[in-house]
């Protein structure tokens, strides 16, 4: 049996998304900046895609900028807010200790540029409170950036309330919603979000394409300079096929969000219950306020990579910490942020489900994983049952 349970790392493209791309790869290859029909048709396609993305986020098309993915969106959002802050002499930023590296590394860069960053504690349950944000806001705060849902432990932040706090205090609020878009209902207006990052490959769209929402009136700073594409805010010939694929995927998943969510959460809960029956295992992140598809558990006495490799032998694709951090020897900064000690953080397993996972697959996972955990513990010098 093959079980793909790493949908937080990337997803399989949907048929609709692929089919939305193909015409723009095969025939409608015009450059949207070109005046002739082939170019203008591409430009119109871009407009439609922009409308689709905007509609699904509750903003206007002019508030959407296409980027090459979630990392670029995060980088540009932070850079832009920092530039605005700098102009006003406000150089304090509020974030959390468990943001994605695309945010954290950018914050480090800004710290070198003289910004001061407050990293809010995310507690053992992996959730910050609006009160923490409010308490941290200072007169010189120019940006609050808190992710919508964490990529490792799936915890959902009270974004609407944080947005309200930021609006009250006149501070720009950015949220990295790469893990949330397509999986949770989002309305940037209702939730008082000023900037939002998304990436298509996390909701069955293509890789290498994303978008940055920035509320009207928030000037973006270019990360990539050059031609006047994207109203001068992001240079480079537009990736029309991928943009079309992203829009189609977003429409498709939004239409089925509720249904998907119900189905996936049920599978998730079965999986969590089953895995927690393994002795000395602990769930990472709040049990309820988590993404419908996210399961993240630490098993004492074993190490993540060997667990993943043995699961792979059984046809199971899973991750330990974020895919981006594998290859590094450090345990996940997210698990450390919620207070897991190093030796336990090394033994984490993330399973992330999507709507095509089945009950049979969950049964299979619940048969294989406990066996592999037990086997690895039998090799381990730190484990004495």
């Amino acid at each position, binding site marked *: 049996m093959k079980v793909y349970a790493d949908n937080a790392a990337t997803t399989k493209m949907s048929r609709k998304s692929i089919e939305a791309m193909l015409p723009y790869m095969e025939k409608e290859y015009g450059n949207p900046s070109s005046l002739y029909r082939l170019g203008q048709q591409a430009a119109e396609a871009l407009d439609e895609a922009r409308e689709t993305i905007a509609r699904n986020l509750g903003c206007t098309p002019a508030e959407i900028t296409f980027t090459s993915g979630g990392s670029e969106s995060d980088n540009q959002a932070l850079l832009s807010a920092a530039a605005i802050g700098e102009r006003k002499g406000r150089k304090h930023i509020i974030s959390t200790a468990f943001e994605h590296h695309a945010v954290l590394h950018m914050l480090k860069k800004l710290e070198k540029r003289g910004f001061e960053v407050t990293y809010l504690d995310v507690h053992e349950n992996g959730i910050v409170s609006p009160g923490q944000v409010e308490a941290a806001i200072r007169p010189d705060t120019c940006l609050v950036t808190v992710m919508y849902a964490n990529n490792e432990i799936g915890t959902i932040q009270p974004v609407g309330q944080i947005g309200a706090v930021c609006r009250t205090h006149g501070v720009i609020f950015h949220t990295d919603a790469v893990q949330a878009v397509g999986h949770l209902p989002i309305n940037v207006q209702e939730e008082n979000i000023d900037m939002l990052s998304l990436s298509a490959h996390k909701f069955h769209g293509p890789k290498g394409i994303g978008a940055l929402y920035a509320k009207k009136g928030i000037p973006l700073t270019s990360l990539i300079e050059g031609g006047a594409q994207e109203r001068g805010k992001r240079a480079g010939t537009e990736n029309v096929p991928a943009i079309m694929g992203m829009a189609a995927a977003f429409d498709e998943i939004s239409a089925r969000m509720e249904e998907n969510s119900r189905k996936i959460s049920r599978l998730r809960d079965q999986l969590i219950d089953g895995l927690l029956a393994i002795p000395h295992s602990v769930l990472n992140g709040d049990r309820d306020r988590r993404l419908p598809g996210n399961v993240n558990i630490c098993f004492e006495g074993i190490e993540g990579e*060997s667990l993943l490799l043995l699961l792979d032998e059984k046809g199971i694709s899973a991750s330990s910490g974020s895919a981006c951090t594998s290859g590094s*020897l450090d345990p996940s900064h997210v698990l450390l942020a919620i207070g897991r000690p190093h*030796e336990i953080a090394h033994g984490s397993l993330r399973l992330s489900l999507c709507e095509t996972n089945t009950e049979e697959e969950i049964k299979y996972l619940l048969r294989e994983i406990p066996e592999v955990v037990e086997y690895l513990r039998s*090799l381990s010098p730190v484990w004495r049952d």
Partner: protein
Amino acid sequence: MLYSKKVMDHFTHPRNVGVIENPDGVGEVGNAKCGDIMRIYLKIDHDTISDVKFETFGCGSAIASSSMATEMIKGKPLSEALELTNKAVAEALDGLPAHKMHCSVLAEEAIKAAIQNYYEKNGIAYDAGQFPDCESCSHCASCDKSGN
């Protein structure tokens, strides 16, 4: 793939796993904080390793390195076992990814630690220069030594 076939074979079917009761020498290196601990048990007859077992908490290459290294010293005189280098272990495994070489170092050091333990338990004089000194160890950049 991340690992060679040889690594995967030794990882999925590790040789010499387990514990030796009343061993003649035991060596443990690594640190749970870094995500890898290796423990080697030796049975020694007339300066020869008559049996060896290991327990490892670690990644695929740590387990494969333990398995391969124990195979390589089993039945060998101590003098030969002391000459086993991490490079030889990695080569016998058809190579390890660059960022996983430190796992083979753990295997080399665990064996040396076990032999040292045997010498010390039995009051046998030995050349300290042959053995790693944990203070000077720096193979594992992620290890926060001050926090041990």
